[in-house]
C-alpha cells in the first residue's frame, strides 16, 4: 500500500448554498490553485443557472477533482447536465442542505438504478 504514497490526493469540490460551502470549507476541502481557480462555488438566489452549469462542467473537466458535491436543490436546476454525466470519475454526489432534506426520488444515480426495475425491462 505504500507504493502509491507519493501520489498527490485528489480534491473534493463543492457547489452549494452559503452554509454548505462555509461548512465544508471549514472542514478543509477548499483550495485555490496556482491559476487562482477555486474548487468551490457559492450559489445564492441571484446566481444564474447558466453560471452553475458552467461551473459544474468546469469541475468535471478538471482532472484533479475526484468528488463533486452539489446540493440537491441546485442539482435540480441543472438536472440535464448531471444526468448526462455517466462517467464514474469525478463522482457527483447530491447532498441535502439544511433547508432541503434529501429526496431519494430526485437523485440521478438512484433514479437510474431504479430504472432497471421497470416492468418493461423485466419482461424482455
Amino acid at each position, binding site marked *: 500500500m505504500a507504493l502509491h504514497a507519493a501520489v498527490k490526493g485528489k480534491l473534493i469540490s463543492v457547489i452549494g448554498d452559503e452554509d454548505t460551502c462555509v461548512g465544508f470549507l471549514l472542514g478543509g476541502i477548499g483550495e485555490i490553485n496556482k491559476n487562482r481557480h477555486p474548487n468551490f462555488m457559492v450559489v445564492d438566489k441571484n446566481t444564474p443557472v447558466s453560471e452553475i452549469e458552467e461551473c459544474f462542467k468546469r469541475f468535471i473537466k478538471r482532472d484533479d477533482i475526484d468528488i463533486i458535491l452539489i446540493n440537491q436543490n441546485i442539482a435540480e436546476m441543472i438536472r440535464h447536465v448531471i444526468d448526462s454525466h455517466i462517467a464514474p470519475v469525478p463522482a457527483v454526489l447530491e447532498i441535502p442542505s439544511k433547508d432541503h432534506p434529501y429526496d431519494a426520488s430526485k437523485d440521478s*444515480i438512484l433514479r437510474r438504478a431504479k430504472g432497471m426495475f421497470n416492468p418493461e425491462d423485466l419482461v424482455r
Partner: protein
Amino acid sequence: MSLGTAQDANAPSVAEANELLDKIVLKQLHLMEEKMRCELNIESSIKNGSIHLAKSRYIMGQSAVSTARLPTESSADFSASTVCETVEEDGIKQIKVIENDAENTVNPLRWFGVLVPQNMHKAQNIFQNTINFIVECVNVQVQLQTNLKYIGMLRQYINSVN
C-alpha cells in the same frame, strides 16, 4: 468482463447468467438502501454543523460567518488540507480521505478571526466528520454505477442468447 457470443464453448448458460443477474440485482437493492442510509447520515451531520455555524453567527455577527469571509479568486493560493485518494483493495477501487501534507495548507478557522467561538471549532469537527460520510457514500455510489453496467451487459447477453 468479456461476455463473448452464444457460440463460445466457455460461454455461461442462460441459467447461469440469470443466476448471476439475480445476485447482482439483489446486491444492487442492498446498495441502494445503503446509499440512502449514507445520505441520511450526511443530512443529520450537515444539520448539526449548521446549528453550530448559526450559533457562531449569533455570537460574532451576521457577516462574520458568511461567504464574504471565504477566499476568492484574488486571494493567495493555498492547498486543501483534506483530499481523497483511490486505493484498490481486493480488486475493488475505494476512495479514502487523507490529510494533505503539502506545505501551503491553511487553517480555515483563521478566515473567520483569530479568536473564534467554541461553536466554530465544533462546526469544523462536525464537517470534517461529514467528509468521511461523504466518501463512504461515494464508494457506495461507485459500486452502484459499476453494478448498473454489469446488469446492462448481462441483460444484453441473455437477450442475445434467447
